[in-house]
């Protein structure tokens, strides 16, 4: 940690991991409800558990992004944060808003929550991922504005690097696009059309900028490769991301009432969306191979490489699998979609946040890297979570393929619920994988406590000095 104000990132990271745990616990509940339909019914119906699962995911990823920005912006701009106090205050505002919202989901029926929060004044609730009460959405906007002001002022006054500028553009886009969540006309087609401007243009647009800059930052720090080289890659990758991703929005416009030419535009451009992710994989491995130093935090490097690979498989390959209109006609809104969603979110946004946390947390705690024991635990958790997520994805894909053939691609289509029972075996297998994932997360959290204890006992991060010798002298 080079600048004192970077310390404000710490609570953001801790809260992010806490919410991550909540997300996964509710994910397991959902997994059980898929096979034991009345589990926790009617206390926590599926839709409530799902809201908690997806909303905590979004909030913790945003928390992670903010923490990452507070950590890397001072280092990139080479000056203290404009206002650490504002960052602290906003952390508590954001956390309180998130906690109150989740409590609201769990304590009162959703319709009552809508009433209590005055949703009729400005109706924004009840749409997938945007279920938050309108006042929570307003709160998110306020937090985002204060955050952008803080980060923006810091960048403005300090050194301007590609990493910090790209991050700032990504965050700015994130905040601006969120404003479309306030647009909710009765016209269902318009509602859906612009709903995607939040959802798609976030995850397949501006979030990729944030992801790219975070990955670039960690790779600069851990490999010691020349900044010029890394930043060139960064620009080319995010250029490709926006070039393919913007018009790629069209792959959501095939069957919601939008004109049919979107089937061509959407298919053509989203077919190229794997390209930036593929470049990201090549980039990450290239940088690590050309490294000028062996950073003692090997776990962070593993997370970074894992991000690039799993983002490519999840977002790139699994996205391409069902993005062409003739295929999507049969797979739209099936378990294939769920499979892609899980792998893509995990590979791209969960892993990049853990990469950042894994790199920055030891430094925030005053050491370059954690003890080897702690890092080994982290690596175990990486493999446990990644492999179990691969299996979750494969099982959901299996379920989805069967669903498509029984319910849609057939002359004798069966009703939805009949098909669900026929494919229950895959849901059981998915649930088992989900439990392994939860185990992996517990191992990850444990690694922090092991690191703290080893640090107190003065155990050094790397056992053998020889391993620190430069690879490419």
């Amino acid at each position: 940690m080079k600048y004192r104000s970077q310390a404000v990132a710490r609570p953001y990271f801790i809260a992010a991991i806490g919410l991550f745990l909540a997300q996964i616990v509710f994910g397991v509940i959902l997994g059980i409800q898929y096979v034991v339909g009345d589990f926790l019914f009617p206390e926590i119906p599926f839709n409530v558990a799902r809201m908690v699962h997806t909303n905590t995911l979004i909030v913790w990823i945003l928390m992670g992004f903010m923490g990452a920005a507070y950590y890397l912006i001072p280092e990139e701009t080479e000056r203290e944060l404009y206002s650490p106090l504002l960052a602290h205050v906003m952390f508590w505002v954001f956390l309180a808003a998130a906690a109150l919202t989740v409590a609201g989901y769990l304590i009162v029926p959703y319709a009552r929550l809508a009433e209590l929060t005055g949703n009729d004044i400005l109706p924004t609730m009840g749409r997938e991922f945007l279920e938050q009460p309108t006042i929570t959405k307003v709160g998110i906007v306020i937090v985002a504005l204060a955050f952008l002001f803080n980060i923006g002022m810091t960048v403005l006054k300090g050194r301007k690097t590609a990493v910090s500028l790209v991050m700032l553009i990504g965050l700015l886009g994130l905040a601006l696009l969120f404003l479309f969540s306030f647009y909710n006309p009765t016209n269902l087609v318009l509602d859906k059309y612009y709903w995607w401007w939040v959802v798609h243009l976030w995850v397949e647009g501006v979030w990729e900028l944030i992801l790219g800059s975070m990955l670039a930052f960690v790779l600069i720090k851990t490999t010691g490769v020349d900044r010029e080289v890394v930043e060139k890659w960064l620009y080319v990758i995010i250029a490709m991301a926006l070039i393919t991703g913007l018009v790629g929005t069209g792959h959501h416009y095939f069957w919601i009432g939008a004109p049919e030419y979107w089937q061509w535009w959407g298919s053509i451009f989203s077919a190229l969306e794997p390209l930036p992710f593929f470049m990201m994989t090549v980039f990450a491995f290239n940088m690590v191979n050309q490294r000028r130093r062996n950073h003692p935090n090997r776990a962070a490097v593993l997370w970074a490489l894992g991000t690039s690979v799993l983002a490519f498989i999840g977002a790139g390959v699994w996205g391409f699998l069902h993005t062409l209109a003739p295929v999507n006609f049969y797979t739209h809104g099936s378990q294939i979609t769920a499979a892609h969603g899980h792998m893509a979110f995990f590979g791209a946004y969960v892993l990049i946040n853990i990469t950042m946390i894994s790199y920055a947390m030891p430094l925030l705690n005053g050491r370059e890297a954690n003890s080897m024991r702690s890092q080994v635990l982290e690596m175990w958790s990486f493999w446990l979570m990644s492999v179990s997520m691969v299996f979750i994805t494969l099982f959901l894909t299996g379920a989805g393929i069967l669903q498509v053939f029984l319910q849609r691609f057939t002359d004798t289509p069966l009703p939805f619920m009949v098909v669900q029972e026929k494919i229950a075996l895959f849901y059981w297998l998915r649930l088992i994988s989900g439990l392994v994932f939860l185990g992996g997360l517990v191992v990850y959290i444990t690694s922090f406590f092991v690191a703290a204890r080893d640090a107190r006992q003065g155990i050094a991060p790397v056992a053998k000095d020889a391993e620190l010798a430069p690879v490419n002298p």
Partner: protein
Amino acid sequence: MAQVFTKSMARNIFYGGSVFFVLLFLALTLDTSLTLPERDQRHQLDPSTEVGQRIAEGKRLWEHNNCIGCHTLLGEGAYFAPELGNVYTRFGNNKEAIKAFIQSRPAYGIPGRRSMPRFNFSDAELDAIAEFLKYSSEINTAGWPPNKQG
């Protein structure tokens, strides 16, 4: 081999490419906005008509009860319960059948199985929901879903 690959060129491509594709996307959106009236059944939504008011109320109830948290509507939402974009046609173009189904849900579920919660809607509210689902089924969705099972 001597090679030039400058950061400023990569940056220019990023800015230029982004602006280019934002404009292209907006141009396509403009055309979409002009074409949508032929496809989205907006004539039904006129708030001065009774049907228009019912649809608006139906969408409000749809949102206030977070139906999207289990169902899909035009293929978007959760994948836990059946698609409802075409439920009107699946139920034989019959609003009463939709209403009857919603009313018949047991308050404490069905042991071991998925069941829709009991919502205790008034008759007017049920009418509104059915009207909204009817309107959804009449949107021109390019032939999706492939069959009536959704």
